[in-house]
């Protein structure tokens, strides 16, 4: 192998290209480039777009919350772990938002959807919105989120939409690894010192009101038989995982009442907690300040 071979990947960055990249990893193209993205016959395209948007928003907002922990973690290794998890979720968000844009057919790409919608247009569950108060809350929320999303993606590997099935098939491997990581920390904190146990228990109590929403029936999913998963059907698997982890950690399952929807509407209907506005303000500020910029 010559030096030329070693560094050609980087040398080629200096070439004049059409995509105006300025750093490694920039100059994004359509992440679904070259994949057959026609909507299958018999599938409601508008509903498919809305469904992919919601699943993409879950990953996008949670990825941003995880990224906010970078430089604030107790150890470098954990920071690397969270950055990797956030990157996996961002990758899932890009695929899903791209799929949403194509199924919608109105010419909106992933950037348009991520950066130029307002709070009420986001469809993520409220679980991913609040900033974690401490490391215990981070571990607890990550466990609940990844256990739920893994169960959901497991179902979606059999989706009648081949693109959703493909995205889920990749995501399952990633989410299983995330769930293992979070479970390890919940057990370590719950089964640790009196202080770590108390804080882990308090963290679960703080998150618990947002768990019920994950299993609420969803009007969009109901319009997509064979394509979407019924949220209520995921409950048994997620409960089984959480009970196993809480049992191993010596933690009690919280009993707090769910955070009620507002007039029957929650995250999937565009009704969010106050926290989402702050996430979007940071997430969207550069794109909105420089709307013609490319990266």
């Amino acid at each position, binding site marked *: *192998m010559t030096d030329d*071979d*070693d*560094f*050609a*990947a*980087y040398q*080629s*960055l200096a070439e004049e*290209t059409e995509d105006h990249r300025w750093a*490694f*990893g920039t*100059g994004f*193209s359509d*992440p*679904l*480039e*070259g*994949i057959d993205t026609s909507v299958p016959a018999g599938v409601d395209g508008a509903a498919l777009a809305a469904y992919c948007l919601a699943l993409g928003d879950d990953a996008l907002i949670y990825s941003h919350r995880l990224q906010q922990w970078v430089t604030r973690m107790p150890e470098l*290794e*954990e920071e*690397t*772990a969270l950055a*990797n*998890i956030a*990157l*996996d*979720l*961002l*990758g*899932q968000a*890009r*695929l899903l938002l791209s799929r949403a844009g194509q199924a919608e057919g109105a010419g909106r790409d992933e950037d348009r959807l991520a950066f130029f919608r307002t709070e009420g247009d986001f469809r993520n569950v409220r679980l991913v919105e609040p900033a974690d108060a401490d490391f215990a809350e981070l571990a607890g929320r990550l466990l609940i989120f990844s256990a739920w999303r*893994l169960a959901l993606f*497991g179902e979606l590997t*059999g989706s009648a939409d*081949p*693109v959703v*099935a*493909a*995205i*889920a*098939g*990749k*995501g*399952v*491997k*990633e989410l*299983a*690894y995330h*769930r*293992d*990581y979070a*479970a*390890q920390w919940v*057990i370590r904190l719950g089964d640790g010192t009196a202080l770590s146990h108390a804080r882990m228990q308090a963290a679960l109590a703080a998150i618990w009101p947002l768990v019920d929403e994950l299993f609420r029936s969803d009007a969009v999913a109901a319009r997509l038989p064979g394509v979407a998963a019924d949220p209520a059907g995921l409950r048994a698997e997620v409960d089984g*995982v959480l009970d*196993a*982890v809480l049992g*191993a950690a010596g933690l009690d399952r919280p009993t707090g009442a769910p955070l009620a929807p507002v007039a029957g509407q929650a995250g999937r209907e565009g009704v969010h907690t106050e926290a989402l506005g702050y996430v979007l303000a940071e997430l969207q500020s550069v794109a909105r300040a420089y709307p013609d910029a490319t990266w």
Partner: protein
Amino acid sequence: MVTRKAGDGVTGKADMVTQEAGDHVAAALELAREIAAAVPDPELPMVTLADLGILRRVTAEDGRVVVTITPTYSGCPALREMAHDLRYRLARAGFADVIVRTELVPAWSSDQITPEGRAKLQAAGIAPPHPVRPDQGRPGQGPVPLPLTMALPKFVACPRCGSLDTERTAAFGATACTALFRCRTCREPFEYVKDI
């Protein structure tokens, strides 16, 4: 105006024109394959896209080279660099019009890393992945079991001294596809390509 036959572009043209021209196209495609297979991974430059199983196939459509690759992880930032490097190297060899396609199905698995790829990783001080366990996140296999002990592969051998007395120091490494280990015998840290 020639009428295209069904099937891929190369076969169609070979049938239509002469055997000689067909051989020429086949040879060109073989060259494109060799070039694509030799493109180094941007994150792990000691191995190629073919070594890692990222390169799925090189075909021809209507006289254009089509390179199909698959991402290792959904958010892998290197995918873009790979596509760019493929186009650049193929353009240097005279293939001006190259299509790079992404394929998500079947999802990439570390089992797709070739024996040559594993040997190159090992030689560069990176422990190659163990085979993926049958219960490990296979689509359509029902719920993924929760191990409650962080899915540790048994006996990750130190790529430097060969010792099996190693420990994992972090579940995630500097790239999406690696975890961090340390050898208790020679005391050196090393990376392990995660089995997924």
